[in-house]
């Protein structure tokens, strides 16, 4: 009995930590999709870039974890502004196929570039000492890194949600997701809004990539390896939704952890089947508008 409970707690705990990373990486994709209608398959590239910057700063330059994350966020956010202005912006009116092809091209180039610079293998993530080991909570002990991950992620997510609710930028994003034409006629500069949102989403992805470098190992195929999971989070959550993907990520993170723990032979299989069943029931996702 106690073994069952402790397994359940462990699954919930690890699943939640995984879910937080999935959400922080994916939420930007949902907003880009809802706001610009852009099928950005290369979203994971920004997370990967964030991960590489973070681990490189930590491993090679001894920069502290928090500072590395912050720098990764900034670097990727700024780079994404350049990429959005020069490339993405030219394809907002293009067909979905063109957007898909363009972003696949971007993924391929990113894989090649990452292999060239960092080699084909996953990066070693030298966890800060404070995050190694376990922490005691009541009668149980939990890995400190994952506990830290959950706490920090919740803080980031609350900050994001509050920002979307309370700030001017947030209000404009919500208005434009609801009705782009209306927002334009209200005088919202959608071009600049797109750039800002894109940069914000990319910076968040970079943060997720760096934070979760222990869970989703940083390697050249990162953007493809986890693409389906990012897409599941966004589709099940409902394209354009900000909170939907959070619940989708929780379902996926905990479900995936449970499956891999309980039925390792068919774990992934079950997740895909469940996703299909769910979308068969609600094609627009849990929180999407039909």
């Amino acid at each position, binding site marked *: 009995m106690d073994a069952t409970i402790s397994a359940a707690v462990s699954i919930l705990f690890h699943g939640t930590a995984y879910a937080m990373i999935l959400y922080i990486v994916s939420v930007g994709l949902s907003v880009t*999709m809802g706001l610009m209608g852009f*099928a950005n*398959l290369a979203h994971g590239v920004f997370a990967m870039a964030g991960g590489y910057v973070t681990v490189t700063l930590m491993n090679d330059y001894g920069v502290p974890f928090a500072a590395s994350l912050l720098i990764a966020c900034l670097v990727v956010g700024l780079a994404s502004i350049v990429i959005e202005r020069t*490339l993405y912006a*030219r*394809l907002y009116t*293009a067909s*979905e*196929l*063109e957007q*898909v*092809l*363009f972003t*696949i*091209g*971007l*993924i*391929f*180039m*990113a*894989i*090649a*570039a990452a*292999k*060239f610079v960092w080699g084909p293998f996953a990066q070693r993530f030298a966890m800060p000492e404070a995050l190694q080991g376990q922490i005691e909570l009541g009668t149980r002990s939990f890995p400190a890194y994952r506990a830290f991950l959950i706490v920090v992620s919740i803080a980031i997510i609350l900050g994001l949600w509050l920002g979307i609710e309370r700030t001017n930028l947030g209000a404009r994003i919500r208005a434009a997701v609801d009705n782009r034409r209306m927002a334009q006629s209200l005088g919202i500069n959608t071009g600049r809004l797109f750039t800002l949102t894109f940069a914000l989403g990319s910076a968040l992805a970079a943060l997720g990539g760096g934070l979760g470098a222990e869970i989703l190992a940083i390697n050249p195929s990162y953007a*493809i390896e986890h*693409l*389906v999971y990012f*897409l*599941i989070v*966004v*589709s099940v959550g409902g*394209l354009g939704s900000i909170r939907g993907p959070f619940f989708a990520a929780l379902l996926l993170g905990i479900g995936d952890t449970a499956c891999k723990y309980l039925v390792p*032979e*068919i774990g*992934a*299989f079950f997740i*895909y*089947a469940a*996703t*299909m069943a769910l*979308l*068969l029931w609600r*094609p*627009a*996702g849990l929180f999407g508008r039909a």
Partner: protein
Amino acid sequence: MIPPGKSSLKRPPAVEALIKRHRLRPIELLPWAIAVAAYFLFPGYLALGAQIFIMVLFALSLDLILGYAGIITLGHAAFFGVGAYTAGILAVQGWHEPISGLIAAGVAAAVVGLVSGLVILRTHGLTLLMLTLAIVFMLHEAANKAGFITGGADGLQGIAIDPIFGAFRFDMFGRTAYWYALVVLFLGWAFVRLLVHSPFGRSLTGIRENVVRMHAIGTPVRRRLVTAYTISAGLAGVAGGLLAQTTEFVALNVISFELSGAVLIMLIFGGVGRLYGAFIGAPVYMIAEDELAKADPVYWLFWIGLILILLVMFARGGILGLIDQAMHLVRWRRK
């Protein structure tokens, strides 16, 4: 709404043009002439030739749903793989006759296409893309885990195929395989060509161009899409079956995102929705891969990525599109 007598007596040229559009043009025979000539010119490359035909057929099946019906998929290799494994497993288990094995491959893939199509074609956009990926990953997992019958990660070995019609033995130079693949490709091409020019095929184009309007003229849109998806899956399965039979081996990567992506890229290189994009893109891609990728796979990926981006930015019609534009330019200059 019966037309007045005048126009039915002397048929207007516009009507004539619409009815006769599918008439065969001489240039459409060019690929076949090249394929036959290549047999005699490059006897050392027959194995590669057969593989190219197989990929052309695979890309052609993709063109049917992507180019005509507008369904974007990153998981088409799922059907190629189901076909390959069906043909391969049949042969390993004792059914060595090639034609029936190939038909079985097509049917099995079509069934998987039908079932998955019924599920995924209820969605669109990013969700649909995700589901096509999910299906290819699912089947990959299934093939991997069912190692006792598929050979798992080691691949399926021990495929033995009888001579075609009991007369043409698969030889070590790949001569039989070359002709076998070419004939099957020809039949597949004739079939797809008939299909895309039929009212059914035109209605697929209509769905791609404007689905709202197709609903409003009473088209059962989802049924058409599922039908097209099933046919396309069946053709992809035939291509996969051909690969299994001609190489007498099935590797796990026949069901993969990588192969799905590769066939998509071949089609895009050649030109999508043109029927002949597959005939240009697949050979170009495969010959380039044969020459370049073995030297350095990292650079290969880099260049493929760059070319994709350039194509999207500057040459949306692929190679055939570029040829079109060049022809227009020449004609315009002459005027």
